[in-house]
């Protein structure tokens, strides 16, 4: 009986072994395979955003791999699920650097995963371009291989505060979601708003996702001019919706985490007319972005998630850099360090604006927009108009 079971197990194992390929070989006819990895949560509560990163990258590879294929390379996407967990991200990172074909990582969603994982990438100078990690620490470590296309929390908060001031806001209530991103933006907003003379009458963090009544009650009593929510739309939308239902009349505002048609899908009329800051221009500003949204929808049957366009740009920059590095290396597969160096030299006009990196990997001059939600209809999200456009350079590296 036990023997039989053991035998079955062995047979199963053998079958499994036969089925799994001895990966790593490349077809003889091509000059080599170049793989681009994504790392983002594909399962768990943040899967939707993580998948946006993966799909954006996939679209970029499908569309832009032409030049590299002409040079004789095969270009492939390898998606990894970091489960939004640092330890899983680091293990994946070790797996990624062990695969010599991988020349670029597009990721992560969570700064908390990106920071320890990029320590691993650094071991082999593997380029990582982040579409979403706005935490200043990501680039402030001044690693050659770590760059990002998105703005920084510190800048976005000030943009919001400046705009609020210009709208004549006198008092603000700041809420955040207790994540690196949300709290980061909220703190910078608060600091700048206070500097500009706006009275911040409340500063509150919450991990709550559905029931905001107890937080809203004191807000209603204090009656601020503006509520700033540092966080992502899936938490902010129910919050704003419940706020309006409770009869709170304050102006709403948030960072680029609000930039999703789901915001209006969830909150409807409650968020009509609210403001959000963003580094990603609306489709009316960037013609390519409209085409991207259309193609994305055709291919994946859904609207692009917030960081999909940034992921697309990250991958596009990466592909360009790999191409340049390959040319410099005489048509051979470039080394990882060469790619990392090339990434920093790449200038690219993408969906979210022109990107050029400074010495530590931040976009040199990022465009920051303040947009207003035009309609409660999710289909009309693309009609949101930029109210104000600012060009702000990333803060220089602090020499310690």
């Amino acid at each position, binding site marked *: 009986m*036990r*023997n039989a079971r*053991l035998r079955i197990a*062995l047979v199963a*194992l053998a079958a*499994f*072994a036969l089925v*799994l*390929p*001895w*990966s*790593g070989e490349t077809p003889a006819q091509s000059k080599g395979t170049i793989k681009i990895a994504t790392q983002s949560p*594909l*399962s*768990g509560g943040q*899967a939707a955003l993580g*998948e946006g990163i993966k*799909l954006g990258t996939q679209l970029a590879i499908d569309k832009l791999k032409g030049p590299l294929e002409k040079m004789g390379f095969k270009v*492939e*996407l*390898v*998606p*990894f*699920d970091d*489960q*939004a*967990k*640092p*330890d*899983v991200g*680091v*293990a*994946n990172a*070790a*797996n990624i*650097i*062990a*695969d010599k074909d991988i020349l670029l990582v597009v990721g992560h969603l*969570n*700064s*908390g*995963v990106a*920071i*320890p994982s990029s*320590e*691993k990438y650094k*071991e*082999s100078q593997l380029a990582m371009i982040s579409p979403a990690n706005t*935490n200043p*620490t990501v680039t402030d*470590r001044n690693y050659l291989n770590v760059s990002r296309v998105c703005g920084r929390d510190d800048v976005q908060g000030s943009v919001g505060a400046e705009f609020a001031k210009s709208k004549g806001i006198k008092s603000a209530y700041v809420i955040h979601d*207790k*994540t*690196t991103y949300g*709290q*980061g933006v909220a703190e910078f907003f608060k600091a700048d708003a206070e500097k500009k003379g706006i009275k911040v009458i409340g500063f509150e*963090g919450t*991990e709550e996702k559905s029931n905001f009544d107890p937080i809203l009650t004191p807000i209603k009593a204090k009656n601020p001019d503006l509520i700033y929510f540092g966080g992502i739309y899936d938490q902010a939308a129910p919050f704003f919706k419940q706020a309006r239902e409770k009869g709170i009349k304050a102006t709403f505002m948030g960072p680029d985490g609000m930039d999703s048609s789901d915001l209006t899908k969830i909150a409807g009329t409650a968020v009509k007319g609210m403001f959000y800051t963003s580094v990603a221009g609306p489709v009316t500003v960037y013609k390519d972005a409209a085409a991207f949204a259309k193609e994305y929808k055709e291919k*994946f049957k859904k609207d692009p998630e917030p960081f999909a366009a940034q992921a697309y740009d990250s991958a596009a920059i990466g592909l360009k850099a790999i191409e340049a590095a390959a040319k410099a290396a005489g048509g051979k597969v470039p080394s990882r360090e060469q790619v990392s160096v090339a990434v920093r030299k790449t200038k690219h006009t993408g969906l979210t604006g022109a990107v050029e990196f400074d010495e530590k990997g931040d976009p040199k001059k990022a465009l920051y927009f303040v947009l207003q939600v035009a309609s409660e209809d999710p289909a009309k999200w693309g009609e949101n108009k930029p109210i104000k456009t600012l060009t702000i350079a990333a803060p220089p590296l602090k020499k310690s």
Partner: protein
Amino acid sequence: MKRLLSQPVPAFIISVGLLGVTAYAVSHFPRSIVAFMLFQASILVLYFARMSAWVKGPLAALTLIVLMPVVGSINGYYLEIAIQVGIFVALALGLNIVVGLAGLLDLGYVAFFAVGAYTWAVFGSPQANQFLAGGLFPLPQWWFFPFLLLGVGMAAGAGILLGLPVLRLHGDYLAIVTLGFGEVIRVLANNLDKPINFTNGPKGITPISRPPIFFDPALRAVGIEPDPNVIYPLYLYFLVLAIVGVTILVNRRMEDSHLGRAWEAIREDQTAAQAMGVPLVRSKLLAFACGASFAGAVGVLFSAKQVFINPESFTFMESIGVLAMVILGGMGSIPGAVLGATVVTVLNLQVLKGLSLWLNELRNAGTTIFGWSLADLPTQLEPAKYERMVFGLILVLMMIFRPQGILPARRRHRELADGSGEQP
């Protein structure tokens, strides 16, 4: 196979042969997960093989101390897996004391891990300058070792702190209180960035100092130029190995000690144990403290390994994961906890990931099944997205078909087999 393994000589040949072949396979196919898994399996075969402890001990030591690092230097990913397996093995062994031996269901075990991790993270990084004057921080690297002990102490302290008020509770009340405690620690770590910044909140702490390479001069003397990228993973691996070794040793001694018997008595029947003179309060407190202390030690190591930590690493799901390891392996069984931790970690990091990567490769290669191209698979069905689903399924099936765990505790078995070794 089983018969062969029960005879010393063939067992020796088989296990050594398997180890050799699989290690060679790994070196030949450095990217094949199957090869590495076979290597891991042959370590398991070595464990089951019946041979004199004098042969087995050195053989096991040789495998773990020489062969594994060699395999790991071929593919760094394997070393990373080995390190994480080690971390989880130590965690599972610690929880095994609380849940497996003493029978106290702890759903917030990861809290002690967090206590250890934050102990070193705060003082081994510039973070402590935020609330302590003098600019002394980060502490020099060699402080890592005292902090390893301090982490043990802090976590044990937290264990007693939790244990004291909740000793009157049992069963599921205890479970819910420990769950609450785990959440409290995480929320505290997430929020103690104001009014005084202790933990830097959700932004986490970085850079955390790594342990010092004290053998650096020795390496240079032999003529090896230490490259930190190569040395650190190996170094951490050996540190983890040492901690796991100590943990297993302590567990072993504990199990057969007076205290271990007391725990098991409490687990089986609290009232009877008390009637027999087992000091309930002290025994339970010690169970909490012992279990917690291992988590504290690996916590310190974990923060040094990650260089960055934030509260996301210490969620309730993590506690559940460690509990699943203990129960999958076989409650109260040391080899069970080791195997359970290994299986779950390997499953999570390797098998499920490997499977989805492989399917992805097939798709990229345009493979067709019955004339239907895999490339047409809608993205919704991407297997990478359903790892947790598969894990859940495995948990259920495992519980249905082998509820006692993979390697159940052998105490009963041993008691019946030979009475000699069991004198009190």
